[in-house]
């Protein structure tokens, strides 16, 4: 029996249950739901505050956040994001499940092996996804897990619409043939 920490994968049900318990921990110890994208918004806001003079007066974003007592700062959520990076790094190191892959095989099958093309798509996709997450006030973690488990109407709506749009986009990009190359 080898050490489970060195296994490349665990059952998705075990992982899901553990994330569920982790959400109890986050609510109980920090009074926070698990969420990723607020930290990106705060980082973006801190950068704009540093480089754009007078932006705190000219953009009502800052006043609106201050009013809610949520002025951008390096906080619990920011450290959560840093922790996700470290945790995944440790896990992949222990299981030797590391990669330096630029172009995933499924992408290469459909769009060729150009690194520039894949990076451009990743950049645009990442930007669009994060923009959407902030407009909706949550992501797959904030709405998909934390919001859904609180039975929030906003979160269940977000998850169902997002999933339908993502399925439609994936089939537009890869076609029915793509599913055979997963």
């Amino acid at each position, binding site marked *: 029996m080898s050490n489970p920490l060195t296994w490349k994968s665990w059952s998705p049900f075990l*992982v899901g249950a553990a994330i*569920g318990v982790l*959400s109890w921990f986050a*609510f109980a110890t920090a009074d926070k739901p698990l969420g990723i994208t607020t930290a990106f918004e705060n980082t973006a806001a801190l950068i704009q505050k540093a480089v754009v003079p007078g932006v705190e007066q000219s953009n009502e974003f800052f006043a609106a956040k201050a009013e809610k007592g949520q002025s951008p700062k390096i*906080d619990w959520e920011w450290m959560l994001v840093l922790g*996700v990076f470290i*945790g995944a790094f440790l896990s992949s190191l222990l299981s030797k499940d*590391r990669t330096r892959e630029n172009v995933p095989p499924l992408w290469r099958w459909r769009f060729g092996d150009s690194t520039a093309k894949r990076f451009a798509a*990743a950049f645009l996709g990442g930007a*669009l996804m994060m923009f959407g997450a902030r407009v909706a006030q949550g992501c797959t973690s904030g709405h998909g897990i934390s919001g859904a488990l609180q039975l929030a109407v906003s979160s269940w709506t977000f998850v169902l619409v997002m999933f339908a749009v993502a399925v439609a986009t994936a089939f537009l990009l890869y076609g029915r043939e793509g599913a055979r190359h997963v």
Partner: protein
Amino acid sequence: MFDSPAKLALGLLTGILFGFLLQKGRAAKFHVIVGQFLLRDWTVVKIMATAVIVGAVGVYALAATGLASLHVKPALWGGVLLGALCFGAGIALFGYCPGTSVAACGEGRRDAMVGVFGMLIGASAYVALYPFLQPVIKRLGDAGKITLPDITQTSSWLWIGGLVIVGSAALWLLDRFEAQPSERGLAVSRYS
């Protein structure tokens, strides 16, 4: 500018556990996320649904005993719908969600690193455009911080009981009847 050191340490610990679990769940992989949206690999749905079922029981129990409070996000319809549209298209193109892209960076994936930089640009665009986005976000009204038990005027525990029973049964059926990866490989070699 900074939370207290204790709170920062708590966030870091929670994050390390979260990232470790996402990597072990294979959710930090492009083909697993895209495979979900091509309805071929159900790993992501299994992880998320299990997390929601287990999480709901504990978080509502904590809230009922006063050990935690709920943080429900408002149903700002314009924002939720426009956001879900952008998010759905973006996640399918990128091939990672916000949390799993950070985990994928930890695993060494270069395309995820580029995408995380794109995410910072996307967040910057949201902050810069905030004043112009407000009318769109509020366009279809704000139903407030409502939950499914609120709008149906039923007990939360009725919903959680239903979620546990229906959710577990659906997951069991999914796991039982989903084609196994080895069979998938066979299907490809047989038909292509």
